[in-house]
Structure formats: structure tokens, C-alpha cells
């Protein structure tokens, strides 16, 4: 980054120790701010100034910039995702306890049990640092599930890599698998499904999607809201460090322009290192807190860290919130407010707790050796107010940060070449005609990376832990017992054929759903709900946006046709190398229910000789 010619906001007053408080911001309206480097467009920055009636402080700018990013705000996808809601009928909604808009969807699966499940992407970090990127991807989705009040019970991992023979795949794939295994195994979550697909388009942009499934009693759902004036805000889990701050180091480098040699903060790594042990303990600690009724609201810290957790909790609550950043336990020295708010340090959660329960809360945390700190409280004002060293550094309406970010109706255009690629059809291809050719084709297919055994991957994952895994690899769908008494169980499968989706995004998304649906059905389970992880290229490419819109419509229409709702999902744009997007990859996950797991149907041709093989469908 080159030095900005303007006098920076941080230096407006000369001193480097000075705090960019709201008051200071009001007094220095003309100070230049590096909003573009933080990813905000000119009009977005103007809108922030409009909302606040002044320029944002550094800390506020950091908050808005991460929360208004594509990843957190869904600004390009929102207008399309609405269609999922429109396509969902009352009938489909009847089993849904929480849906789109919550951390993860929750579905009633009978006998008083509920299941929550969700897929998230960690694509880019896994390309930069495969092991840690994939590991922290698992960690993130597991905390999402925990935030719903559920015990995480299984994970699955839909993966896409460049060609198997590419040298970079030899770097990325083993690291990703080790990361997912290392983290999931250490959490004690059986891995019961996933995919491994190789294609040229993922060569510099692998897809690492992670699914987590959680189980809870249907009346025990936790929600992410901050209510009750005077209730305390408690941050618990790992300490907050300088890791994963990414774009915000732009601010850091300005603030700390004096001592760049010391910490070299301009080059802060945007990589986070996972600590699965801390997360495992955090799971047990959270579950004990929930069981003891010590939590009013809870939110996980993922992307955008405290910025996201505080603004989302406050936004969903009925009042304001006050936070004292000096209370946040730090791992690094000299962190400034923007850094503390944006840190993506893993293995942290944020809870809202009644004052009378704080001692009980702390006791549970001590039992599990989990660091927990009161960092603020719910207030009766409207605003989210954050102080640091006695000065106010944030004073914003939380909804403007968390929910009322920009929304774009991006241009979309069916590309002309679409006709060209669909003009081709298989009739022009040579087909094997002799037995010898058939044999040769079969062998070639069996040996191809996309069809061969996945054992090298799956043998690195624990699928036995917790003792409830009824089916896992190589079964089409994973099946898990959730109630030992009744034998009630659930099934999950994730699927997507991105090559179909490239040919016809609408139909491809429907096929992805149909495949996951079938994979759940063939285990003997009844499909009940859908989640997704929509991996696409740049939202600013009209052809990509067209693919996206078509895929959403296809998936929503097919869900309606099958009568099972989309309960949540995740969007990952900007998966591309240069101007070439990945194949459109709407990964679809289906959840099923099975009344009695002893009646599950294993994959494979039967155990006894003489069985008949029937082909269903056409």
C-alpha cells in the first residue's frame, strides 16, 4: 500500500497515542480516512457519515467496513435469497423452529428433539494456509451450531480442488484434510459425510465447505439477542489477539506508523491458528451454561469478531449496549480499538447474562478453565456504545451495522456463450461398443480421481466417536442415532455437480438438491430440510450473478416441489482466479429423519449371493 498523500485521521492531532474518539471525530470532519483500502465504496462511506452525522471514528470505520463486506452483509445476494422465503409455504414451515436469519436453521425432528445444521465456506483462507484455514473453518461452523443451544454431534466436509495431478493440489489437499481431521477429531465430532471433487476451475481457488449438525431439545433453542437492561455482556473462551485482522491492518499501520519496525504490523497475517482443545472445552462449558439456565442470549464470534457479535446481539435485542474494550482479555500488546473489534481470534463466544447469574456463570467457566470476562451491559438507550481508555470510540445504531447495510441489485446477464456450451451434446461423443472397450472405460472411470476411493481422505477422520454413528463413509448419506432409548436418528448428505450447474444453473441446483435428497432417502430416512453453501465467482460479473440468481431459483423451486424448506445457508462470492470464475457450485445439504436407526439401509450390494439388482427411474 502506498502512503496516502492526505493527512491521515490518526495523525490529525499529532500524537500517536491519541484516541480517535467520537468527539475527536466530530471535531475533525475533514480528516482523510482509508475507507477504500478497507473495501468501502465512496457512497457507502458517505452513507456511514450520513447515519452518524459526522465522520466515523477509526473503530467505527473498522466495524462498518467488515460488517458491510459481502461476507457479512450479503449485500449482493440478499435480493435473491428472499426468494427462498417466498417459495416456502406454511406447510413446509410447520417443522421449522428457526430459519433463515438465525445463526443456523432448526428443525423439529419429533419426540421433543430438534436438529440444527448449516454449511459454511472457508475457501480463501484454506488456499493461503490449507491446514489452519480448513481447521478454523470447522471451528467456525461448530460455534454457529453451539450458538443455537445445540450440542454439535457431527461434521461433514464438501471439498473441491484443482486437478489431482497439479502440484498445488499436493500442497492444498493434504493440508485441508489434516486441518479438518485434526480439528474435528480433537473436538470429538464424527465426520459422517462430504465430497471430494477435482476440477481445473478450482486450481487457485479450492472450496472448503464445512457442515456441522447439532442436536437439542426443541424447547431449548438459544437466540442471539441482547435483552434486559442491566444484563451483562460476557466474552468467554480464548483471548483476543492480532490474528486474522486482515484489512484492518490498514488502520493499524496508520496508527502505529511510528514503530513499524517493531511489530511490522503492516504485514499482519490474515491467518488464524485454531486451538481445537479450547473449542472442545468451550462446547462443554456452553452446554453446561445452557443446562443451568444461565444464558439470556448468546452469539459466536466468527468473521468480524466482536464487531459482529456486539452489533448483532444489540441489533436483535430491545435496547442498546455498552462495551468497555479495556476489559477484553488480550493476547497481544498495544492493540488499538479497531484491532480489538476486528480480531478474528478463534474459539470465543459472547453471552448475555442476568446480573444475578454472573457468579454462577463464572463458576461454570472456572470449572472448565475457560476465561470469561464481563465486558459490558445491555442499556436502555438505542445505541451500541464502546469505550476505550475512558473515551467513547463507538456510538452507533447497531441495526445500521448489522442489518441495514447496503443492498445491491447487481446487474445480471445470461452470457451469450451459454448457448454455445449447451449446444454440444453427448451424441457427438464416441461410445464404447465392444466388451473390451466397455471394460477399458470402466477401469478408466474407476481410476479417475473423481470416482476413485476416498479412503485416503476419510481414514483420517474419526467417524466412531460418540458411539452414535450408524452410517458414515462410504455410505451415500451419514446416519446418526440421536436417542438411544427410542432409536430415533437423523441422516445428512451434501451434493453438487458443478458441471451440470455450469450448463444450466437452474437445473444444476435442482439436481444437487435431488441428489442429496436421494442420498438421504436411500439410507431409509425421510428428508425434512435443506441447507446450502452457494460458492460462486465475482458478484460484479453479470454472468456470475445470473448463475447465482438461477441457482437460487432452481433450489427454491425444487425445495417447494419436494415440500422441504431451505432453513439456512451461506453465500461465498469472489471465488475466481483472475477473471475466470469457478464452476458455479451451489452445495446442497439435506437433513433427514429416521424413526428407528436399526432399520437403516447400508450402501452396497447385499451380503447374500443371489440377490437381484433393480434399476429404478429412467
Amino acid at each position, binding site marked *: 500500500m502506498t502512503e496516502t498523500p492526505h493527512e491521515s485521521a490518526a495523525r490529525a492531532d499529532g500524537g500517536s497515542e491519541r484516541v480517535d474518539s467520537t468527539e475527536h471525530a466530530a471535531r475533525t470532519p475533514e480528516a482523510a480516512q482509508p475507507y477504500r483500502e478497507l473495501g468501502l465504496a465512496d457512497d457507502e462511506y458517505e452513507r456511514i457519515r450520513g447515519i452518524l452525522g459526522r465522520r466515523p471514528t477509526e473503530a467505527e470505520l473498522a466495524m462498518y467496513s467488515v460488517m458491510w463486506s459481502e461476507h457479512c452483509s450479503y449485500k449482493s445476494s440478499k435480493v435473491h435469497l428472499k426468494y427462498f422465503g417466498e417459495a416456502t409455504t406454511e406447510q413446509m414451515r410447520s417443522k421449522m423452529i428457526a430459519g433463515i436469519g438465525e445463526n443456523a436453521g432448526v428443525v423439529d425432528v419429533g419426540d421433543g428433539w430438534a436438529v440444527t445444521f448449516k454449511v459454511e465456506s472457508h475457501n480463501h483462507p484454506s488456499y*493461503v*494456509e490449507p491446514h*489452519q484455514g480448513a481447521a478454523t473453518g470447522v471451528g467456525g461452523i461448530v460455534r454457529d451450531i453451539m450458538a443455537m443451544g445445540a450440542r454439535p454431534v457431527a461434521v461433514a466436509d464438501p471439498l473441491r480442488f484443482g486437478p489431482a495431478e497439479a502440484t498445488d493440489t499436493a500442497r492444498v489437499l493434504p493440508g485441508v484434510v489434516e486441518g479438518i481431521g485434526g480439528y474435528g477429531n480433537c473436538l470429538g465430532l464424527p465426520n459422517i459425510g462430504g465430497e471430494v471433487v477435482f476440477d481445473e476451475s478450482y486450481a487457485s481457488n479450492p472450496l472448503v465447505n464445512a457442515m456441522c449438525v447439532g442436536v437439542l431439545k426443541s424447547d431449548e433453542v438459544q437466540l442471539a439477542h441482547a435483552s434486559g437492561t442491566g444484563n451483562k455482556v460476557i466474552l468467554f473462551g*480464548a483471548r483476543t*489477539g*492480532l*490474528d486474522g485482522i486482515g484489512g484492518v491492518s490498514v488502520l493499524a499501520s496508520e496508527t502505529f506508523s511510528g514503530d513499524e519496525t517493531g*511489530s511490522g504490523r503492516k504485514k*499482519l*497475517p490474515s*491467518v*488464524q*491458528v*485454531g*486451538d481445537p*482443545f*479450547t473449542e472442545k472445552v468451550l462446547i462443554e462449558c456452553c452446554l453446561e451454561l445452557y443446562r443451568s439456565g444461565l444464558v439470556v442470549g448468546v452469539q459466536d464470534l466468527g468473521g468480524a469478531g466482536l464487531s459482529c457479535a456486539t452489533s448483532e446481539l444489540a441489533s436483535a435485542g430491545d435496547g442498546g449496549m455498552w462495551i468497555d474494550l479495556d476489559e477484553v482479555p488480550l*493476547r*497481544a500488546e498495544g492493540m488499538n480499538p479497531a484491532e480489538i473489534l476486528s480480531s478474528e*481470534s*478463534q474459539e470465543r463466544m459472547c453471552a448475555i447474562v442476568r446480573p444475578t447469574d454472573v457468579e454462577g456463570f463464572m463458576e461454570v467457566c472456572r470449572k472448565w*478453565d475457560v476465561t470469561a470476562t464481563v465486558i459490558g451491559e445491555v442499556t436502555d438507550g438505542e445505541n451500541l456504545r464502546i469505550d476505550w481508555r475512558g473515551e467513547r470510540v463507538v456510538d452507533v445504531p447497531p441495526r445500521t451495522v448489522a442489518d441495514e447495510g447496503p443492498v445491491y441489485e447487481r446487474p445480471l446477464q445470461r452470457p451469450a456463450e451459454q448457448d454455445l456450451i449447451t449446444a454440444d451434446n453427448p451424441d457427438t461423443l464416441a461410445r464404447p461398443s465392444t466388451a473390451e472397450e466397455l471394460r477399458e472405460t470402466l477401469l478408466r472411470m474407476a481410476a479417475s480421481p473423481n470416482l476413485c476411493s476416498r479412503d485416503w481422505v476419510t481414514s483420517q477422520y474419526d467417524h466412531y466417536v460418540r458411539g452414535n454413528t450408524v452410517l458414515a463413509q462410504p455410505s451415500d448419506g451419514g446416519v446418526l442415532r440421536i436417542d438411544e432409548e427410542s432409536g430415533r436418528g437423523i441422516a445428512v448428505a451434501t451434493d453438487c455437480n458443478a458441471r451440470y450447474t455450469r450448463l444450466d444453473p437452474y437445473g444444476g441446483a435442482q439436481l444437487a438438491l435431488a441428489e442429496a435428497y436421494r442420498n438421504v432417502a436411500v439410507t431409509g430416512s425421510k428428508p425434512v430440510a435443506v441447507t446450502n453453501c452457494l460458492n460462486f465467482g465475482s458478484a460484479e460479473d453479470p454472468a456470475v450473478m445470473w448463475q447465482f440468481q438461477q441457482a437460487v431459483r432452481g433450489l427454491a423451486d425444487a425445495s417447494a416441489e419436494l415440500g422441504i424448506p431451505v432453513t439456512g445457508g451461506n453465500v461465498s462470492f469472489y471465488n475466481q482466479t483472475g477473471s475466470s470464475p469457478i464452476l458455479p457450485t451451489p452445495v446442497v445439504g439435506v437433513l433427514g429423519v429416521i424413526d428407528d436407526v436399526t432399520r437403516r439401509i447400508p450402501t452396497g450390494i447385499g451380503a447374500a449371493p443371489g440377490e437381484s439388482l433393480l434399476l429404478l427411474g429412467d
Partner: protein
Amino acid sequence: MARVVVDVMPKQEILDPQGQAVANALPRQGFEGISQVRQGKRFELEVADDVDDETLAKIAESFLANPVIEDWAVRRVES
């Protein structure tokens, strides 16, 4: 033949769960006064005399360490 040691340590700003686990366990065993622990790797290499420092640096950087999250140092020692 030369003996070469390559030390690979997690970068300061990067979380080091291993070192942290050790640091937390020490007081429980009655060892006080250890305020920080970082855990890294140590490689000992037997190296032919014609392998130069530049090559060793390359081996450390591209192979023994993961420069995204780790720092490294190479030194030749008496054997």
C-alpha cells in the same frame, strides 16, 4: 559433513496453543515463575560440505517452515 540446526518457531502474533498448554500446566505441577512458553520445532540436518547457506535458507523457508505462520533460523554447528 556439517551439522546444521534449523529452528522453526510460531510467529509472535500467531496463537501458539501448544506453548500455551505447557504454560498452563506448569503451575499445576508446582513449577512457578514461567511466564511464557512457545513451542516450535528443531531440525538437525547432516549436510554435505558443498551445500551453501542460500540452499539451506531455501530448504528452511520452503520446506521445514510454513512462513505464513512460522519464523525460522538456520545455523551451522560443530559436529
